[in-house]
């Protein structure tokens, strides 16, 4: 059990399943006996706009938000949104980013964003082709967020046990999609 509070920013574009991801991490941390708090946004901000959520777990968590430079992990479902979260970065912050670029402005290109991420986050950047892998292996892109979560858990980036996360998935995900989500989660074990 870590003594220090673990701070995660989850970013992406509205509709990418951020709230589900957040609920699972919350539940898993709770299962392990941590105090946990998170903050999410609904409504207008979810309609295809930038979405940024906070999760924190540790011994004793007060605010659901944390300051700039205080993230242990930026978990992003989209590359541009990962770059937007740079203010939360300190020299140790890990960036796990889905190699998925969602166009929105003619002046912002995929290559520009990827280059900036590489230049600025350097060795702490893990660009993961989650969307592509999930499309190929599971014929479903929506679960790429769960695949990314699996990546963070099996690589030890998020200090939670795989069993706790699986338990959380079973609690949060409706039965109908459960198998698919578990597959996506465990798919990340192989890399």
């Amino acid at each position, binding site marked *: 059990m870590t003594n220090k509070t673990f701070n995660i920013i989850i970013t992406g*574009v*509205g*509709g990418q399943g951020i709230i589900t991801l*957040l*609920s699972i991490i*919350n*539940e898993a941390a*709770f299962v392990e006996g941590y*105090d*946990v*708090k*998170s*903050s*999410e*946004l*609904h*409504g*207008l*901000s*979810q*309609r*295809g*706009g*930038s979405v940024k959520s906070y999760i924190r777990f540790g011994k004793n*968590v*007060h*605010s*659901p*938000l*944390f*300051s*700039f*430079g205080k993230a242990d992990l930026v978990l992003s479902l989209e590359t*541009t*949104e990962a*770059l*937007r979260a*740079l*203010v*939360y970065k300190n020299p140790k912050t890990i960036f796990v980013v889905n190699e998925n670029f969602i166009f*929105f*402005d003619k*002046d*912002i290109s995929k290559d520009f964003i990827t280059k*900036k991420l590489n230049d*600025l986050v350097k060795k702490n950047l893990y660009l993961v082709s989650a969307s592509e892998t999930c499309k190929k292996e599971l014929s479903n892109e929506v679960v790429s967020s769960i695949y990314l979560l699996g990546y963070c858990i099996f690589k030890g980036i998020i200090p939670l046990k795989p069993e706790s996360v699986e338990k959380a998935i079973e609690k949060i995900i409706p039965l*109908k999609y459960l198998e698919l989500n578990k597959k996506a989660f465990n798919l990340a074990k192989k890399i």
Partner: protein
Amino acid sequence: MKKEILIGNEAIVKGSIVSGVDFVSGYPGCPAAEIGDEFGKIAKQFGVYFEWSVNEKVALESAIGASFSGLKSLVNMKSFGINVCSDSLFPLAYTGTKAGMVIVMADDPSCHSSAQSEQDSRGYAYLSHIPILEPSDPQECYDFIKLGFEISEKFKTPVILRTTTRVNHQRMPVAIDEIIEGKNNKITAKFIKNPHQFCTMPPRVLEMKKELLEKIEQIRDYVEKSKTNKITGHLISQKFGIIASGIDYLHTIEALEELGLDLPVLKLGFFYPLPNKKIAKFIKDFKQVLVIEEVDPYLEKEVKIIAKEINSKVQVFGKDVLPEIGELNTEKIILAIAKIKKLKIKNILKFKNPVKIPRRTARLCEGCPYWHIFPIIKRIAPEGTVFGGDIGCNMIAGLAPHNIQDYLFSMGAGLGISHGVKKSLQQNSDKKTEQKVISIIGDGTFFHSGIPALVNTVFNKSNPLLIILDNRITAMTGHQQNPGMGQTGMGEPTEELKIEEIVRACGVKNVKLLDPINAKELEDTIKEFLTKDEVSIIICKRICALLEKRQKSKQHDQ
């Protein structure tokens, strides 16, 4: 007690059920919508009645009826809802309640999901004289809603639970009582006539005001003793104290931890009435006090008044070191404390994003029927056409690539303003150059408050073109039932109100109901209706793309 991870809104639902709520009404708005959504799902299971009302005023009035008939009620709405229902809220404070009533009023500092204004609804305490409780987190949402019902029953007053986005949508493990399904110890509803209490006719109304003001002082005595107003932290020798409430209290504790300071903090659970004596006692020996609150400086002003009487030397800080715009966070509070205490802060300001990225604004969903409508309106409208906007998914009309929105106000306001614009243009003698006016509104908003504006437009003879986008549901707030759907908030079948029949009954002669994927028909109708001397209406009826997808997936399951 067991613990369960809940968002603030779920904790409000559970706390209400444990308090024995019988009757729940509301109007969906972010960040409060999940309260009604949840009741829609579970009401029957717990023997509770739930409705999505047509607007917040009617929602409150329904609950008043329930309270007068002896049922405990909960009303939920977003900040602006309190403006809509205020006309009935003020007399309710005068009459008081019969059975307990709590009103959830959810503000959205930083306007994450709000057009209109950055409203700090705590100000309604002064206008209405209704007690206001402010929880900081989901646990307090649960505890305070229970307390709210308790106070309401004890003092026969409605109680407002004032939340903010970061409380409604905060998640944490919450200790909850065991909730038993089924109708628990409900009393049968009975309306016992009592016009002395329920009618606010003069001269009785002024007597009622006197009773209300006396009641508030009794509640203040209760608040003075309440444990919801608590002092944490130490180091009194610092001669510096902090007063905070709601989510700001949590940021404050976080900020003090980051700064390594152990300062006394008075956390206020009540915003109104305030525990004046407790505040006086807290600030009595300080040299400096910092009041930490989001948006408007209500508390700061109150503390300054108290300070004047008790300790005129104390310096009270607030909006001079904290922003009046936008939500607060740990950084902003650290900077404020550092400024007062003249501390050197090393790191905090160096965090700036080296890459400038333009904003990714909200956009229409894939397959949204509005993709068929906005481009046609934009193309067909003659140069100089004025576009009225309204609240809901259709307000995305104001963003690129559409850019067809010249004003956006409150629910249903688009047509009211469009009438005023058109009426003004009609005063010009040159008819040839007269600008056209096209106003857009969604089905939910039309039912909420668009109808009076339409009646006014017909009655006072102006001729804008109103385009009603009927996507068969209240979509933006997460798919809630409205009167056009033939289904209530509890999922029961009901009369399906037809917009085309309503507008005809309002006296509109030029009415066209169409499916907007028929581009040619939409185009021709817009062209034709823009030449009319009376108001005309096009109803673009096509289901929300997300709803259609969900319905199909549901059918697939069956």
